[in-house]
């Protein structure tokens, strides 16, 4: 079997691209070295946010927000998506000035999704909060989703649209022969016209197989989750001056994450979560909500993720094979929200169709 497109990696980006390509009638094959949604796409904090995006990602993120709202129409399930406000709190005047400057930069470019929110309005929305409030940014109608369910939703939709999946297939060798890519895994051979690298934390290793040298560090973001609590928090909270992502899921658990990393054991295909390394995060969470000090943490976990030096993903043609090898990895722990639109945009570009979303600044050529 010879495929039009062969995608490596069945995370949310690989699955979304596969779905959008298959929907266009292309012959698509996805190779996954473990199982679909096994790594970061399936185990992240589930944030669906436009707030605080790198300017280069904003067009893609805005398009994705539209698709998250219509996910059920697109792939048949809503992935547990809940539209709630995302708030970034400034704890002092300096931080507020930063927030105002960010919002101004966006509005100068014509983007209106981020708005300044006053301290008084914040207090009204967050009556239980205890930290000093100078104000902040609100992005209305961001939200969160269930990462595993969403990613599997794209996987299943891609299959229904005709994409072929092979799990436990680790790509070992890629070679261009007579205008076709010959892809070797540990026990099978595949052929395709165009290869798309959606290998996440393994993206740079894969790029190296075809001679593209791209900078990528593997990180293991950690999350802790508490016992179920009575509902007290609707928006997703972050801080301007400190690292925190804090939200309450529908089942009542609190998901607390952001910035504190576990140990990376890439050779063993895992990260190691460690509670003592989360002490600072717990401290921050308790600064905000002292009333949860006796709440139990029941689980921690981490996943392996690729991080580029400038904090933005690599989406664009290969440096050495620009015509038939495409990169889409290194989402730096904020790729989940971008998944739906990334698939659409990359599929349009690769099929030579109209694309209104500018992703040119995310290309591999910047490194």
């Amino acid at each position, binding site marked *: 079997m010879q495929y039009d497109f062969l995608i490596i990696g069945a995370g949310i980006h690989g699955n979304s691209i596969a779905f959008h390509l298959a929907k266009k009638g292309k012959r698509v094959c996805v190779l996954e070295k473990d*199982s679909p*949604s*096994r790594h970061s796409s*399936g185990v992240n904090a589930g944030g669906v946010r436009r707030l605080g995006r790198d300017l280069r990602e904003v067009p893609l993120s805005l398009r994705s927000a539209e698709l998250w709202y219509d996910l059920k129409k697109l792939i048949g399930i809503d992935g547990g998506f809940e539209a709630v406000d995302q708030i970034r709190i400034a704890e002092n005047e300096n931080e507020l000035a930063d927030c105002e400057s960010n919002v101004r930069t966006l509005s100068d470019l014509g983007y209106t999704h981020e708005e300044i929110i006053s301290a008084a309005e914040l207090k009204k929305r967050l009556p239980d909060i205890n930290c000093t409030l100078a104000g902040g940014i609100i992005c209305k109608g961001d939200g969160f989703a269930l990462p*595993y369910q969403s990613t*599997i939703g794209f996987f299943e939709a891609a299959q229904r649209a005709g994409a072929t999946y092979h*799990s436990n297939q680790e790509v070992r060798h890629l070679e261009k022969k007579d205008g076709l890519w010959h892809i070797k895994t540990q026990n099978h051979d595949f052929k395709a016209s165009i290869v798309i690298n959606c290998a996440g934390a393994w993206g740079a290793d894969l790029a190296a197989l075809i001679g593209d040298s791209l900078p990528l560090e593997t990180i293991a973001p950690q999350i*802790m989750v*508490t*016992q179920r609590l009575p509902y007290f928090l609707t928006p997703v909270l972050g801080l301007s001056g*400190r*690292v925190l992502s804090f939200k309450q899921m529908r089942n009542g658990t609190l998901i607390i994450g952001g*910035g*504190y*990393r576990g140990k990376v054991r890439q050779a063993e295909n*895992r990260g190691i*979560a*460690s*509670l*003592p*390394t*989360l*002490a*600072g995060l*717990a*401290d921050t*969470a*308790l600064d905000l909500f002292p009333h*949860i*000090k*006796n*709440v*139990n*943490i*029941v*689980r*921690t*976990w981490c996943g392996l993720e690729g991080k580029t030096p400038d904090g933005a993903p690599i989406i664009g043609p290969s440096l050495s094979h620009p015509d038939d090898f495409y990169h889409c990895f290194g989402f730096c722990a904020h790729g989940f929200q971008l998944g739906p639109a990334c698939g659409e945009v990359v599929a349009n570009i690769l099929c030579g169709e109209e694309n209104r979303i500018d992703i040119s600044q995310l290309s591999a050529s910047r490194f």
Partner: protein
Amino acid sequence: MSKQTVVVIGAGAAGMACACTLAQHDICVTLIDEQPQAGGQIYRNLTENQHMPADFKDLLGSDYFKGADLIKDLDHPQITHHARCVIWQIDEDGTVYFSVDGKAQSIKGDYVVVATGALERPTPVKGWTLAGVMGAGAAQVAMKRDGIVPSGDVVLAGCGPLLLLVAQQLAKAGCQIKALLDSTTTKDHVNALPSLLPALSNMSLLKKGMEIKVSLKKLGIPHITGVEKIEMSGDTALEQITYHKDGKSHTLACDTVLLHQGVVPNIQISRQLNLDHQWDESLRCWHPTTDDWGQSSNQNIFVAGDGAGIIGALGSQYSATLSALKISVLMGKLPESDLLKQAAPIRKKLKAEQAVRPFINTLFKPKWLRPDDEDVVVCRCEETTVKDIKRSADIGCSGPNQLKSFTRAGMGPCQGRYCGLSVVEILAHAQKTTPDKLGYYRIRPPLKPLRLSEVASLNTLDQKDA
């Protein structure tokens, strides 16, 4: 440089024996335990119970009070015993994190001995989540710790030496035992026969077993063997138990049902440490892979006693003593040339304990591992049913870790302790494979729930990676 220390986790038979042997070799030991007093499950609350009236002591039996010497030996200048601890994380380098009275702390051992013993195997039968149904081991804990026994009509169901012992103890304590529903079959007896001869080298244990059986008869407890299946029912709490035998079903009204299908190694810590494990086909459980001295796949970590494979209280003491001797050599406190000589008599006694295990394991072959009824809750924390698990298997669920993502099974506060084995049995059966091929839950910290304030109390600047 800090003083060389060995951290021993668990002050049961194994942990105490290990700590005492290390101390005798002039090694500083930190013994960390959950209970207020040393003793573990087997010698639980022994120090207090020594002062109880003679009839209560008689009920607990003379074997129970044999633990007194071990507990006394813990009073040694080299041993620091931390009671009432909750251990919530252990790092590969031997750092143990725990909380005492809500205060988090850590200690790094040059070696760590995991002596966390056994757990009662979960018995997911229909109605097992009803109020009034509990583990036979749990009932024994209540008796040893608080002198509490169930009131009303009691039925014991399942199999294993502990079930018989608890039946005897409760009957002696005046409980109304309505029936002992034993899943052991005639075929199990026949299958166990070939292993009886090697077991004869441990006559005292066999004799004890026989004595309990005779005593059950004398006490007038209806002992029904060959019970194929049980189910409990009741409106808000347990009201009755129905058992099936020889194609017929019988129903008994009762107030308490005590379930038991043997004990299995408690592998929460060894899994969290990502040690190598192996599947025991006859006992249908995992245990960490260890060498003859209890050293695991991480050379800093030893696993001793029932936690490394069910061996009983005496066997646990012997295996833990061997671990302590090996650590003494590694820490330069015992000449290597003396190791085999010192170990030989202990290894001989351990062999006698091991010799009887195949007989016990075959005779009390665990049953009721997979409920037929699809509505039975398997993961009690997240209320995942047999049906949920089978449905996941049907759509290609690759193992217990993916099952977490599909169903949330194993993601509650108990960290999969009470559903792990059942989940794997059900998945393996549905996919026509074996548990060892599917593997087990990845266990991550916290091993037991821990308050946010306890985590925050560990905050120091150098741990931030913001």
